């Protein structure tokens, strides 16, 4: 075995207890870092996944990007008109089916028209404000997971009754309405119709399950009091991560407001960024504290071994060689800590994954954890690096020992 490794290994081996404590410090740091990273990223991914599944990836609404121009402004480029109310515009997206056909030519995904409105459901004397979406059951399944989220009934059941309605399961519970119940539906234009509950769904997002209902497009148009109205086109993309650029292009081409799921949830996603910064700071602090243990053990060894260092230098070992001995010792502690910590981290994740938990916003039976080699590599790498840095300074000090001073002191 190489001399440097031999001496380093002997030092580490003969101080088994101290080495174990230092190594355990690093291992604990690595283990907790992996567990924290796994939990934080897992919960984030889970939440984003739920959002991506529940929300349309791009929503095109009938709002215009700019207010309607006055006829004078259209006619004369330099005209400036004050005090006039903007021209009243017919609600809805113009030629929705033609627009969908045009978008389908290049949007990588599926699109479906819908009518959204705010309304009130009344049943058995209870009123609940809801968001009602008029959908096309034939294409809805291509843009949302509603079909798979059905708990009772099916999307096609919307065709089987007059003014059929599908409720979120929590909403149905709130109203105490079961499948087959006749509910009163009021739209935002004070149009009231009677409908039949034909199914319930469960999305997993409490807000949706408590406040959303689906009807046929035609029923939605009745509630909005406008035949042929389509005020929203929803798109589900093959790759949800390109939603932002697709939304921007749609807005530019159609002039309608087009919002990606990322923009719609911007506040939440920004909060995740802040959370990640906090997480990495905490993880870094844990590993830094763990490296103090390595610093401590290497300092102790170099202090205890000052006489040996002096004699090695007097025999002819160079400063570099002496420094290397102690840096290797620190590396050995860091490496052992990183390996044990990785195993510890894995089992902590497994243990944490067994805990059942529920949040007010999203149903989750188990804590969501993300298993990725990156967490292990980063935690082990940082631990190893901080151990080497922690070992380097006492090693450098030890290597600078003047042998004569120690030998004189010893004699």
């Amino acid at each position: 075995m190489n001399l440097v490794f031999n001496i380093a290994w002997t030092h580490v081996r003969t101080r088994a207890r101290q080495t174990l404590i230092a190594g355990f410090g690093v291992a604990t740091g690595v283990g907790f870092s992996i567990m924290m990273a796994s939990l934080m990223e897992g919960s984030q991914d889970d939440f984003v996944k739920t959002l991506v599944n529940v929300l349309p990836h791009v929503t095109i609404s009938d709002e215009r990007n700019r207010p309607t121009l006055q006829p004078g402004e259209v006619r004369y480029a330099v005209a400036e008109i004050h005090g006039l109310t903007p021209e009243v515009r017919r609600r809805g997206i113009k030629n929705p089916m033609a627009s969908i056909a045009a978008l389908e030519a290049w949007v990588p995904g599926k699109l479906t028209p819908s009518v959204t409105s705010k309304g009130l459901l009344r049943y058995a004397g209870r009123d609940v404000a809801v968001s009602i979406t008029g959908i096309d059951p034939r294409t809805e399944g291509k843009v949302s997971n509603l079909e798979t989220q059905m708990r009772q009934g099916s999307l096609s059941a919307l065709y089987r009754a007059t003014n059929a309605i599908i409720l979120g399961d929590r909403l149905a519970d709130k109203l105490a309405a079961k499948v087959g119940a006749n509910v009163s539906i009021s739209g935002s234009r004070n149009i009231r119709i009677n409908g039949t509950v034909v199914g319930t769904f469960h999305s997993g997002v409490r807000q949706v399950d408590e406040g959303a209902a689906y009807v046929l497009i035609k029923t939605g148009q009745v509630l909005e009091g406008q035949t042929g109205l389509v005020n929203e086109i929803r798109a589900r993309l093959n790759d949800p991560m390109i939603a932002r650029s697709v939304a921007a292009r749609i807005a530019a081409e159609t002039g309608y407001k087009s919002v990606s799921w990322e923009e719609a949830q911007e506040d939440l996603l920004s909060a995740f960024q802040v959370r990640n910064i906090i997480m990495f700071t905490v993880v870094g602090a844990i590993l830094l504290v763990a490296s103090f243990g390595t610093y401590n053990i290497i300092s102790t060894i170099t202090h205890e071994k000052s006489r040996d260092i002096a004699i090695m230098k007097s025999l002819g070992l160079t400063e570099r060689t002496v420094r290397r001995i102690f840096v290797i010792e620190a590396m050995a502690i860091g490496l052992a800590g990183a390996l044990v910590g990785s195993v510890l981290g894995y089992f902590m994740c497994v243990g944490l994954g067994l805990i059942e938990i529920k949040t007010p916003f999203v149903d989750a039976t188990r804590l969501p954890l993300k298993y990725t080699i990156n967490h292990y590599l980063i935690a082990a790498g940082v631990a190893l690096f901080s151990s080497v840095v922690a070992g380097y300074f006492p090693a450098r000090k030890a290597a600078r020992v003047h042998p004569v001073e120690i030998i004189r002191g010893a004699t």
Partner: protein
Amino acid sequence: MSEPLIEARNVTRVLPGLVPVTLVQSVNLKILPREFVAITGPSGSGKSSLLYLLGLLDLPTEGDVLIGGRSTTNMAEDERAKVRLSNLGFVFQFHFLLPEFSLTENVALPMRALGELTEAEIGERAAGLLDSLGLADHRHKRPDQISGGQRQRVAVARALANEPPVVLADEPTGSLDSKSSAQVFDLLRSLVDERGKTVVAVTHDLTLAARMDRQVRIVDGRIVADEKTTPAPA
């Protein structure tokens, strides 16, 4: 007259401080091959300081130390370390063996540091040295498992590991009882007579010094006497 193995030319060593202390002053000394030299003098006279300067463990404030005719004043620390490793062997008052290593490993240390031999050759030479010094049965023991005299013999074996032409010994018998002391002295004597080495030993024991070939006496950092020992009448 043969070339000196070590030569001190006008060497002075001053310890800096509020009140600078002169350890060695204007010393000129030549150590020739196959000499057994005693450096004697009262406590604090600068004997050990001179030995450390000759062994490149310390740097002179003024003057130069030549090893095999090569000036060492402007040598980098790594180069000085290499010169020490291959040209000089050290024996101190205390054995300074590495406690966690076996006797063989301790003797092998300078050879492994020099890196010129294979592990098999190193093991063979270390074992041979220990055998020749009567420590064959203790090769695999650790330093705390043998007596003080034996430890000092191991230290001598370590000093000889790289076959240096010169062995520098600082009070090599200072911490030993009279019997062990005599054994170690005889061992050093045999290095000169049988192995053709040069031994420079610091000692305050004038009886031992009288049995060496040459005595250099130091007082207050200066050499006051440098003479061949007159053999005792038979």
